[in-house]
Every structure is written in structure tokens, then in C-alpha cells.
């Protein structure tokens, strides 16, 4: 006896429904761990506060600015940094080892959608919890450090798109990086090299304009700048409109490159997968 035929859902409706459901589940799950989330966010705030204090100290010593940036502008940069940093958090490449070893991936492979959508959907939903939890932190930081922030409407709009673009670029790129785990378990050094390059070339450490010229040119051709420095600068940098839109276009390009990379590498990676559990 067969089940009654259900109307077929088109791919757009299907994916949209899948994403919305994943996001709702993520929100419901993560909201239960508010305290844990807060501990993590507060520990994470230490990093930009340290950079902010160091560079503001230098700026004040050098007569009010360093590299054309005042303490108030550093404060704006690093406070927006905290939101962008949270938006940047994606499924860690280190997580692949457990997924493969425990056979958790088997369950994900049984679904009719590519496993990456599970990660994209879940973390996207989590972002909404994070944004809500972040607001009080932003208020406190602004009271303490007096940022010089006057964004124009176009800055806010581009920023809203750019943070999600950053999320997508980082998601696909680190998915590809994580798939290295299918071939070797000694992934620590490889990942650390990539993360260090990202720290130095993305605008996470300092505004990219303070880095030496060769580093800035290198940052232009790598995806890191578009995940960190560009979203921050979009909001605080008062960039001209062509640069803002050009930045969004670069983000779209890196997302496309990453998406193709995921498709290609996944085909080879999943052939190496064999699990007994899950």
C-alpha cells in the first residue's frame, strides 16, 4: 500500500523552508544557552578591547592620530569589530574530525540536501540570538570608549548585506578547508597557518590601512579582507559609494568561488568517507 502522493515542492520553496526551519531550531537551541553564549562573547570582547587600548594609546602619544585614525575612530572600528567577529563565527574546520570519526556525517549524508545547508542554516539562525545578546555589550563598550561613529544610510544598508556576505564567504571557505580532514587527521598546523594569515590580512588585528603596503596588496587578492575589514569599513569608513558597491561585488565573487570549490572538493572528499558508527 503506497502513501498518498504529496504535491511536489519546488526547489526554491524547499530550500527556503529548510533554511527557515533550521534557523528556528538554532534560535530555540542557542537561546537556552544564553549564559554560555555570554561567557564566550565576553571573553571574545577582550581581544578588540586590547587592540583598541594599544592603538588609542599610540594615537594619543603621536599627537592625536596614527595613520590618520583618531582614538574615537579606533573605538568605532573595534566596537563594530565585535559584531562582525560574531557574524564571522561558522562551523569550525576542527569540527570535521568528530563528524567523520563518530559517523555523525552518515546521518547528514542521508538527507536529500547537501550537508552544507545544515551548517549554513543552523549558524545563520544562531546569529539572530547573537545579535540580540550583543546589543547590551555594544552599549557598554560605547559608553566606555566613546566611539566616533556617524554612519550614513547607505553605510548601514551596505553593512547589513556585508555582514551576511562575510558569513557566507567564511562558511564556504572553511568548509573547504575542513574537508582536508578526510585525507589527514594532523590538521592543526594547516588550520593554524590559515587562521594566522587571516588574523594578519583581514583587518582583524588592525585597520588594514596601518599594515605595510605589501600586506595591503596581498590582502586585496585574498578573501580574508572581505570577511572582516570590508564590513567594518563599510560602516565606519565613510567610503565612497562605488567602493561600497565594489566591495559587495567582491564578496559575491568570493562566495561564488567558494561555492564552486565546495562542490568540487566535496565530490572527492566524500569518496574517502567510511564510517562504522552514526
Amino acid at each position, binding site marked *: 500500500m503506497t502513501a498518498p502522493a504529496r504535491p511536489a515542492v519546488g526547489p526554491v520553496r524547499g530550500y527556503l523552508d529548510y533554511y527557515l526551519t533550521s534557523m528556528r531550531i538554532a534560535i530555540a537551541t542557542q537561546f537556552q544557552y544564553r549564559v554560555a553564549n555570554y*561567557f*564566550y562573547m565576553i571573553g571574545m570582547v577582550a581581544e578588540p578591547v586590547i587592540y583598541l587600548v594599544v592603538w588609542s594609546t599610540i594615537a594619543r602619544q603621536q599627537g592625536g592620530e596614527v595613520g590618520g585614525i583618531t582614538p574615537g575612530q579606533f573605538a568605532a572600528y573595534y566596537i563594530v569589530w565585535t559584531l562582525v567577529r560574531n557574524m564571522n563565527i561558522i562551523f569550525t574546520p576542527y569540527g570535521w574530525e568528530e563528524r567523520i570519526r563518530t559517523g555523525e556525517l552518515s546521518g547528514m549524508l542521508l538527507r536529500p540536501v547537501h550537508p552544507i545547508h545544515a551548517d549554513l542554516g543552523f549558524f545563520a539562525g544562531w546569529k539572530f540570538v547573537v545579535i540580540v545578546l550583543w546589543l547590551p555589550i555594544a552599549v557598554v563598550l560605547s559608553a566606555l570608549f566613546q566611539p566616533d561613529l556617524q554612519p550614513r544610510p547607505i553605510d548601514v544598508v551596505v553593512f547589513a548585506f556585508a555582514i551576511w556576505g562575510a558569513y557566507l564567504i567564511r562558511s564556504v571557505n572553511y568548509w573547504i578547508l575542513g574537508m582536508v580532514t578526510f585525507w589527514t587527521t*594532523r590538521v592543526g598546523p594547516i588550520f593554524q597557518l590559515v587562521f*594566522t594569515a587571516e588574523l*594578519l590580512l583581514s583587518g582583524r588585528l588592525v585597520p588594514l590601512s596601518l599594515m605595510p603596503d605589501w600586506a595591503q596588496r596581498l590582502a586585496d587578492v585574498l578573501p580574508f579582507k572581505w570577511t572582516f575589514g570590508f564590513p567594518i569599513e563599510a560602516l565606519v569608513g565613510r567610503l565612497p559609494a562605488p567602493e561600497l558597491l565594489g566591495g559587495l561585488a567582491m564578496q559575491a565573487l568570493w562566495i561564488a568561488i567558494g561555492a564552486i570549490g565546495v562542490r568540487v572538493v566535496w565530490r572527492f572528499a566524500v569518496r574517502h568517507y567510511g564510517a562504522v558508527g552514526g
Partner: protein
Amino acid sequence: MAGPAREPLRPLRLFGVFFRIGALNELQYRANFAIQVFQSVIALATGLAVIGLVFSQTTHLNDWTQPELLAVMGVHILMGGVIQTFIQPNMVRLMTDVREGTLDFILTKPEDAQVLVSIREVKIWQAVDVLIGLVVLGVGVAQLQASIGPIQAIAFAVALLLGATMIYCFWLILTTGAFWIVRMDEIHELFEGVYQSGRWPVTIYPGWLRISLTYLVPIAFAVTVPAEAITSRLTVETIAIAAVFAAALVVVTRAWWRFGLRHYSGASA
């Protein structure tokens, strides 16, 4: 079989035993040593890049010069190595034991529980950072053109010991909270984040932050004070405050630990 009278040095002997076991365990995985060296070198290169970046824009930070900041970074790495080798593994294991009820196995042993939970884990490959820290410290001090007399060396050793004691107490106070708030895994993320503030001398931070990083999370005593000792900036006052604060912390930690232990419900609860 040991007699009923407690030998006063037994904790030290036990530490030796646990250290040997831990070291033998880790020595099996020699590839981990290479990986640890690689990771420490990358972290060091990043730290040096940051100092280089700072000093491409200025010649001093507050009144700390580049060699002095190198010395601070050296102490930061060194102390980080001590924490990762001796302190943090024990605290993480204690959190797990409280959560899973396996702390019972410690409580039934004929030795003080606080001693046992503090000395049983040693991650010797993390000691690579201690060596790297010493090298960086040496380079910084060599560039200082001021000689290190025996007084500075002793002050430095004393400051390091006091600092490490305070970090241990701080960690144990936090971990004892696991007796009530069972899930505390994010604590060590929080600590790692806050510990990064020790990369720079705490004197550069605004007042409220400096006080927090001195008395709330004793980063100042762990990193800045020893760095001050080796760069001849240390005053007698500071080391006296450090000694008093360390003694007070040890007493408070002990009392808090015993209070927490009374609230431990065990594996069968």
C-alpha cells in the same frame, strides 16, 4: 604502607609521581612535540609581527620601549606555558569530574583532595612555550643594555612564583563554581581571551580595566610584575602587595574549595 603520620613533603613526592606518569604518557606521541613547536612558533611570529607593527608607528608605548615590550611578551608566553602545562589541564579535568561524578575517586584517596586535583595532570609538550618565553625574554633583556643583577633575578623568580600561585588560585576559585553551575566549559575560553590582555603591560589600560586585571583576574601579577622585576622597574611596594595578595588568595581559595566540596553530590545523586 605509609604510617598514620602525614609526611609533610608527600604532596611533592606525589607531584613527582604524577609528573613522571604524565610525561611518559605524552612522550609516546613525539609527533605532538613537533606540532606543538610549530604552533608555538606561529604564535610567536604573530606576536612579533604585532610588536613590529606597533613600533613602525611609534618608539615607545607609554614609557615602555621595544626591548621592554619584548620582555613582557616573553613573560606572557612563559607564564602561558606554565598555565597550559600544570594548571589548566587539572582544572579542565576537575570540571569534567564534577560533572560526571568521577570526583568520588579522588575523594576516597588518602590524600588531600585539593592537592590531588591540582597535580595529577601534566601536559609536558606545552612546556615548549616556557622555553620560547625564556628565549624571547632573554632577547629582550639582552637588548636592554642594562645588566641583570642577582637582585633582579631573584625578584623575577619570586614575582613569577607569586604570579603563578595567584593564577592557580584564580582558576581553582572559578572551577569550584562547577560544584553549583555544573557546565562551565566556556570558562576557559573566557580566561584565554582575558589572558591575552597580559601581552601588554597593564599600565596602558584605563583605570577600571587595570584594577580588574590586577585584583579581579591577576594578570598584572602574573605577567607585568615579573616583567617589571626583570626590567628593573619593580618597587618594593609592588612585590609586597603581590606577596600579601597571594597569601590572602591562597587562604580564600582553600576555604572556598572546602565550602564547595561540601556541596558536591557525588556520582550516585
